[in-house]
C-alpha cells in the first residue's frame, strides 16, 4: 500500500528538498560573508522586478523547459540521459546549418525548418548512445557523457575550421540573415499594447516550449506510446511480456529526448545569439537534470521548475553584477537541488513515510490479537 498520499508525494517531497537546498545555499552565502536576505532580494528584483528581468528569466526558462523535458522523457523510459548538453550543442549546429545555407523568406518558415534541423541533429546525437544501449547494452549514462565531450570537439572543429567566416577571430558562425530574426516578447506583445523590454532575449520560442510541454504531457499520459514508454521504464520484464520492444522504446524515447534537447537551439541560437557560438548551451543540458528531478518528470513540474531555474539563473547573473558573489553560486544551488531532489530523495521521503504511516495506524483501530501458544 502506498504509505504517502499522492499530494504529499508530488508537493511535499520536492518542496522540502528545495527548502533544504535553499537553507544550505543561504549558509553558503553567509559563509562567504554576504547577506542571504539581501541576496534574495536582489535576485528577486533583478529577475522578476522588471520586464527586462522577466525577459531573461523566461529566456533561460525556455532553454530549461526543452532540456528538462528531454531528461524527463528519458526518465520515464528508465533511461538517464546526461547527454542533453551535447545534444543541445548539436541542435545548435543543426539550426546554424539550416539558417546559414538556405535563404528562408520569412521567420515562420525558418522557425519550422530550424525546429526540424535542431531536433534532427539532437536526436541523431542521442541515437548512437541509444542504439548502443539497446543493442549492445552499453551503459547509456557513460556513453552520453562521452558524447558530450565528443560533441564539444565536433562543434569546436566546425566553428574553428569550417563555419568561421574568413577574417573573423571568433570561433563562431556569421550572423543569420535579418529575415530569420525571431520576434522577441517585446515584438510579440507590442500589438496587444503590452510594454515589454526590448533588450531581453525571450522570444517566440517560449511559446514553442510551452507547446512542447503540452505535447509531451499528451504523449506520456494520453497515448499508447506513452504507456509503452512508461511501462518500459517501470518494468522491462513486464513490457517485454506485453510485446513492447526494448530496442524500439529505447530508441524512440532517446530520439524524442535528444530532439527536445536539440530544440533548445531555436531559443538560444536562433532566438538570442542569432549565430552559433562556442558553449552556446551554457550548461543548460545539465540543468535539465535538476529541472526534471525537481519537476518529478511531469511536464507541468518541468515547466514550473524551469521557471524556477530561469529565475535562479537571471537572479544569479544580477548577483554577480552588483555584488561580489560569483555567478557560481547558481551552480552550487543547482548542485544542491540535484542532490536533495535526486540522490538524497530517501532522506526526505523516509521520515515522511514514517510520519504518514504513524498517522494512519493512529487513526485505524488496532486489530484484535489472538494469543498464540508456544509449542509444548
Amino acid at each position, binding site marked *: 500500500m502506498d504509505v504517502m498520499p499522492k499530494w504529499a508525494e508530488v508537493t511535499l517531497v520536492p518542496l522540502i528538498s528545495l527548502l533544504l537546498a535553499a537553507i544550505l545555499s543561504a549558509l553558503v552565502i553567509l559563509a562567504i560573508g554576504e547577506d542571504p536576505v539581501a541576496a534574495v532580494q536582489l535576485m528577486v528584483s533583478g529577475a522578476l522586478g522588471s520586464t*527586462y528581468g522577466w525577459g*531573461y528569466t523566461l529566456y533561460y526558462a525556455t532553454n530549461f523547459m526543452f532540456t528538462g523535458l528531454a531528461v524527463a522523457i528519458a526518465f520515464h523510459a528508465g533511461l538517464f540521459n546526461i547527454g542533453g548538453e551535447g545534444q543541445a550543442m548539436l541542435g545548435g549546429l543543426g539550426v546554424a546549418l539550416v539558417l546559414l545555407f538556405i535563404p528562408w523568406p520569412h521567420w515562420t518558415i525558418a522557425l519550422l525548418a530550424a525546429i526540424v534541423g535542431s531536433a534532427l541533429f539532437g536526436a541523431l546525437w542521442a541515437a548512437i548512445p541509444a542504439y548502443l544501449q539497446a543493442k549492445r547494452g552499453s551503459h547509456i549514462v557513460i556513453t552520453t557523457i562521452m558524447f558530450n565531450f565528443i560533441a564539444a570537439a565536433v562543434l*569546436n572543429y566546425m566553428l*574553428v575550421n569550417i563555419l568561421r567566416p574568413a*577574417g573573423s*577571430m*571568433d*570561433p*563562431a558562425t556569421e*550572423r543569420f540573415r535579418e529575415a530569420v530574426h525571431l520576434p522577441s516578447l517585446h515584438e510579440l506583445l507590442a500589438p496587444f499594447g503590452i510594454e515589454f523590454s*526590448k*533588450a531581453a*532575449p525571450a522570444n517566440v520560442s517560449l511559446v514553442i516550449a510551452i507547446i512542447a510541454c503540452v505535447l509531451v504531457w499528451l504523449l506520456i499520459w494520453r497515448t499508447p506510446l506513452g504507456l509503452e514508454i512508461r511501462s518500459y521504464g517501470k518494468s522491462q520484464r513486464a513490457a517485454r511480456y506485453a510485446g513492447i520492444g526494448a530496442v524500439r522504446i529505447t530508441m524512440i524515447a532517446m530520439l524524442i529526448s535528444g530532439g527536445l534537447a536539440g530544440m533548445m537551439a531555436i531559443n*538560444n541560437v536562433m532566438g*538570442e*545569439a*542569432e*549565430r552559433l*557560438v*562556442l*558553449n*552556446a548551451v*551554457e550548461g543548460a543540458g545539465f540543468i535539465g537534470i535538476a529541472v526534471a528531478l525537481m519537476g518529478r518528470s511531469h511536464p507541468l513540474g518541468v515547466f514550473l521548475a524551469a521557471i524556477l531555474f530561469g529565475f535562479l539563473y537571471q537572479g544569479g*547573473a*544580477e548577483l*554577480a*553584477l552588483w555584488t561580489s558573489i560569483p*555567478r557560481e553560486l547558481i551552480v552550487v544551488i543547482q548542485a544542491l537541488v540535484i542532490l536533495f531532489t535526486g540522490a538524497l530523495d530517501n532522506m526526505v521521503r523516509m521520515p515522511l513515510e514514517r510520519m504518514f504511516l504513524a498517522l494512519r495506524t493512529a487513526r485505524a483501530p488496532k486489530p484484535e490479537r489472538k494469543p498464540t501458544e508456544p509449542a509444548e
Partner: protein
Amino acid sequence: DPALIFDLGGKFDKSFNEAAFNGAKRWADTTGGTFREIELQSEAQREQALRRFAEAGANPIVMAGFAFADALGQVAADYPDTKFTIIDMVVDAPNVRSVVFNEHEGSYLVGMMAAMASESDTVGFIGGMDIPLIRKFACGYAQGVKAVNADATVVANMTGTTPAAWNDPVKGSELTKAQISQGADVVYAAAGGTGVGVLQTAADEGILSIGVDSNQNYLHSGKVLTSMMKRVDNAVFEAFSDGADMETGFQVMGLANGGVGYALDEHNADLVSDSMRNAVDEASDKIANGELVVHDYMSDDSCPVLNF
C-alpha cells in the same frame, strides 16, 4: 559610472585582463570615482553583460577583447547615448571607440632581446588561442629574433583553438617543457592566463621567459627577461577619463604613441645588458619613425619568417 567587462580568462589573469583592470583601478585611484565590472563566464553572456550595463546607465562601457565585436555590433545601435570602447577589434558604429594595438612592433623588440639572450640560438613562442591576432604577436617576435640572428630557430606553439586556451596553465606548462626539450632557452608567452604556467615552468627549468600585456617581470624576479607591454591599461584609463563624451572612432596604439613597449624594472635589470638595451631602443626608434617596418601578420594573413 563607467563599466569594464573582462573577457574569459578573468580579471586576474596577470596579463591582458589584468592590464585592463589596472587601468580602471588607476582611474579610480586618481579620480576617486567608482566603476562597475564583470567577468564573463561563457561566450554566450557577452550580449547580456553589455545590455545590462547599458540598461543600468553605465557610460562609457569598455570591453577587453576582440570577441565582443559581434555582440557590440548588435547592442551599440540600441543604446545610441551610451559610449562603448572595444579593445583589440574594430566595430564601426558612431558611439564606439575601437582601440587596436601594434602588437607586432612590441613583439619585435622582445624578439630581439630573446635572440640576444639565447645561448642555444633557439627561442620559443607559446600563443593562447590560435587566431590571427596571436599570430601577429608570433610573427613580430620571429622577425625580431631573425633580425638579431638570422640562423636562430623559433619554435612556435598555440595552446588551443577555443577561448579555453587563454586559461590553461597546465598546457602552457607542458608546451614550455616540450620547447625546452627542443632546445629553447627563452620562451615568449602570449597566452593570457595560460602564460602563468609558461612563466612558472620556465623559471622552474631555469630558462628565461618573456611576459605579455602587463608587466609580468615581478612574477619570477630575475627569471623573466622582459614583458611585452601592451598598454591596455592606458586605453582603459583614457576611455574612463574621457567619460561619457569621449571621442569615438578608430585608435591605433603603437610604438610611436607608447601603446606597446617592453618592460624594464628592478626584476630584470640584471638580465638586460646595456648593449641589449641600446640595440632594442635603437630599433624602437626606427620603428616609431617609420624607418623600420615590421610586417603585420593580419595585413595579409601570412608571415615571412615563420610557418604556422
